[in-house]
């Protein structure tokens, strides 16, 4: 089990919450117990044996999006509070404590290896042995198969040999919901399938999956020998190599948006889109230029930034599976985030959770791969 770094946790616990303005949870709920240092205090006090876990304390400490917004201003360079909070509450899970919001999804994970229940296989399958193994992630499979088709279409256009397999959940939800043994089991199963695939590159468009492959699998006893690639970097490289050629006129792109039910205004002959940086791509993977470069490679598109962007982006409310476990809080956080976007510019993002969190009835959100695919002949 990952060890809590008590010195770092206490640095946070004894700090007056100098980062709390960037914690979407406390700024949305207004509840002191879910402020970053508030959570750190509970975690530290339980870890030191001063306090016993109860459901309310577990729920408070679990009210973390894993978005690392708290790191924007954090002076403690070695502190990753989101990780420390996750590690700190694992003993509560071992003691059998859980939250009502987690239980149905944990049951799904145990039964179907997906928090969403019966898994859907990807519609596109290519032969075994292809160089690139595309890992779609449970959320894209459950909520947005169109993004999977778009990614496959782009790979076809670029002439990339790829395969998709029957995936198990990456395991991150199991860790977040306190069942580390289940996380390790899922990781082990995925590792076996990856090895059997014969692929040398593991490509994913899901930041949560990417994060757990790169930051957890080795600790969970499932080190990966494949090169792990993120969607934004991978597709940008295909553009740079001339294997993908975005083209088309502004009107064509406006037509594309119409096809998604999005009305877009043209400004100075350019079509304005706003890019929402997913937290993990921006702050953990440091992929803020790649998606912008992809959008800028499409003729006629201009990017309008939201109030907080790039490394200072704010979570959509979907981090750490909040949309499943704390749906009301997730929706409220998404509402705050939406208020930071230019009202007229359609939103593009590169994360299945962000797409799900920010989409509104009257205003869908596009995945980066969907925009790119429509603009590549």
């Amino acid at each position, binding site marked *: 089990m990952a060890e809590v770094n008590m010195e770092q946790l206490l640095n946070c616990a004894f700090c007056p919450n100098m*980062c709390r303005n960037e914690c979407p949870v406390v700024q949305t709920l207004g509840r002191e*117990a879910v402020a970053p240092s508030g959570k750190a205090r509970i975690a530290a006090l339980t870890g*030191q044996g001063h306090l016993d876990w109860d459901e*309310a304390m577990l729920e408070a400490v679990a009210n973390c999006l894993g978005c690392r917004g708290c790191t924007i201003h954090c002076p403690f360079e070695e502190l990753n509070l989101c990780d420390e909070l996750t590690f700190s509450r694992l003993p509560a899970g071992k003691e059998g404590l859980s939250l009502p919001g987690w239980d149905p999804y944990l049951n799904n994970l145990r039964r179907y290896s997906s928090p969403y229940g019966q898994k859907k296989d990807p519609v596109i399958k290519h032969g075994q042995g292809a160089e690139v193994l595309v890992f779609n992630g449970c959320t894209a499979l459950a909520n947005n198969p169109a993004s999977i088709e778009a990614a496959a279409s782009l790979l076809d256009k670029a002439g990339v040999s790829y395969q998709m397999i029957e995936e198990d959940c990456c395991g991150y939800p199991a860790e977040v919901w306190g069942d580390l043994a289940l996380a390790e089991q899922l990781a082990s199963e995925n590792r076996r399938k990856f090895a059997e695939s014969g692929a040398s590159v593991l490509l994913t468009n899901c930041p949560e999956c990417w994060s757990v492959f790169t930051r957890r699998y080795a600790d969970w006893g499932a080190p990966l020998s494949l090169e792990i690639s993120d969607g934004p970097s991978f597709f940008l490289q295909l553009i740079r190599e001339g294997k993908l050629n975005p083209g088309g006129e502004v009107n064509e792109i406006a037509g594309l948006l119409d096809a998604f039910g999005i009305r877009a205004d043209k400004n100075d002959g350019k079509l304005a889109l706003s890019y929402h940086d997913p937290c993990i791509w921006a702050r953990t993977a440091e992929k803020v230029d790649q998606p912008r470069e992809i959008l800028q490679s499409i003729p006629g598109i201009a990017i309008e930034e939201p109030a907080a962007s790039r490394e200072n982006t704010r979570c959509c409310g979907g981090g750490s599976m909040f949309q499943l476990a704390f749906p009301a809080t997730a929706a409220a956080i998404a509402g705050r985030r939406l208020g930071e976007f230019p009202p007229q510019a359609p939103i593009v993002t590169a994360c299945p959770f962000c797409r799900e969190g920010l989409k509104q009835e009257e205003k869908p959100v596009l995945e980066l791969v969907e925009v790119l695919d429509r603009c590549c002949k």
Partner: protein
Amino acid sequence: MDHLMQTMIQDEKTKQALIDQFAKEAAFIIGEENVSTNKADLLATCRDYWPVTSIWMSEGTVPALPQLVVWPGNTGEVSRLLALADRMKIPVTPYGEGSGALGGVVPLKGGVTIDLKRMNRVRWIDEDNLMVQVESGLNGALYEEQLNRAGYTGGHFPQSLRCSTVGGWLSCRAAGQFSTRYGKIEDMVVALEAVLPGGTTFEGRSVPRTATGPRVDHLMLGSEGTLGVITAATLRIWPLPEKRHLVTYTFERLEDGLEAIRRFMRKGTRPAVVRLYDAQETGNHFPELGDKVCALVLLIEGAPRIVEAEAAEIEACVNQLGAADVGSEPVEHWLEKRFNIAVASMLFQKGAVLDTIEVTTNWHNAYSTYRAMQDALLGVEGTMLASGHYSHVYPEGAALYMTTVGFPGEDKVAYYKKLWQAAMDACLAEGAAISHHHGVGLHRGAWMAEEHGAAFSVLQKIKQALDPNRVMNPGKLGLGEVEKWRK
């Protein structure tokens, strides 16, 4: 094992049956989801950034605990909750973001803590009249961010900007780092909206000035929750400055730096940031300047021609005192690091007691108070460091901000009390005022009578008139008994 809930200075509690009844009626007013008795919420709101609460937390105890936490969403709900608490004679502690340094939110008599953070809207921005109306639970950095997006600044940048609320600023008469140009929080207030015990809601008029008797809404400024709850404020705003000029001067003697400031303030210049560090702090904050000189950090901003004129006047004044111009880099460094207080957590974990004590001096005793307080702090056994800087200046004088670090060994709380006694004795003996902007809270109440003289009885009478059942934030501002802490 589970002894966290041991309270160290709780004077009394309300009978549980009354709390249960209050909870039931509060749930009817604000919804069940906005009322909590769970341990996580009681624990979170029982403390602020008072060093003593950290000492106790490290030992697994708390200063005192509320019995109930409520989150009203609007002024009407605050009014109904205060009416209920007053009728049931249940103590009420208002809570913002808990960045206070003197125990102002410790619920000495238990009761109800009203967390105001759901009241976090900017109600309106009036660009023509340069005013904003904002609810008291809004985070300071997010307040400034919203103003910036509209092209304005609130001009208020305390070190706690990111971890304090607008209501907290108003309640403790806060001062920000840019205060010499934009003023302290009381200079920014056009009008306040507040609720008194019993539920009466009132609002001052949002006009530049009135001559219709005392401004009763301004009475709430600095009342630290002892007279009622500030629910919203109309504040002054400024267009974002067009130009910023950064410059640092060094002086061989601290007294020369003070004299230079006194001279340029007499000239009428109002640089936004004026910070004069003693040699020790100069060495700590700006190692490249060494620890043999005293750095004066200046930031001047506003309309370009005014900035240039102020810079020229200031340069003339500092040159009279033999200052050396060392450029803008130290100011840039300060701007980058000004919210970084990591050292406090790290030293605390190594057994240190670190605290800051800010007082107000006139020019005639600005330097002597620094010396007297430094000697007093270093005279307490265990103190390793006592340094100072001046961070807010006026034509009449300056705020002196002392920082002290000690390694007292076992009884840190006893050391803390001795430290403060020594510092306050020295301050009062020099004729300085005991607080510039941190406020009084729980701990500084001991010196309120001496600080105010006869005026303190006026404050006591106001308290009695507005809060006859004495439900509002008991034991704070020196208004009420603090038996266990004083022992």
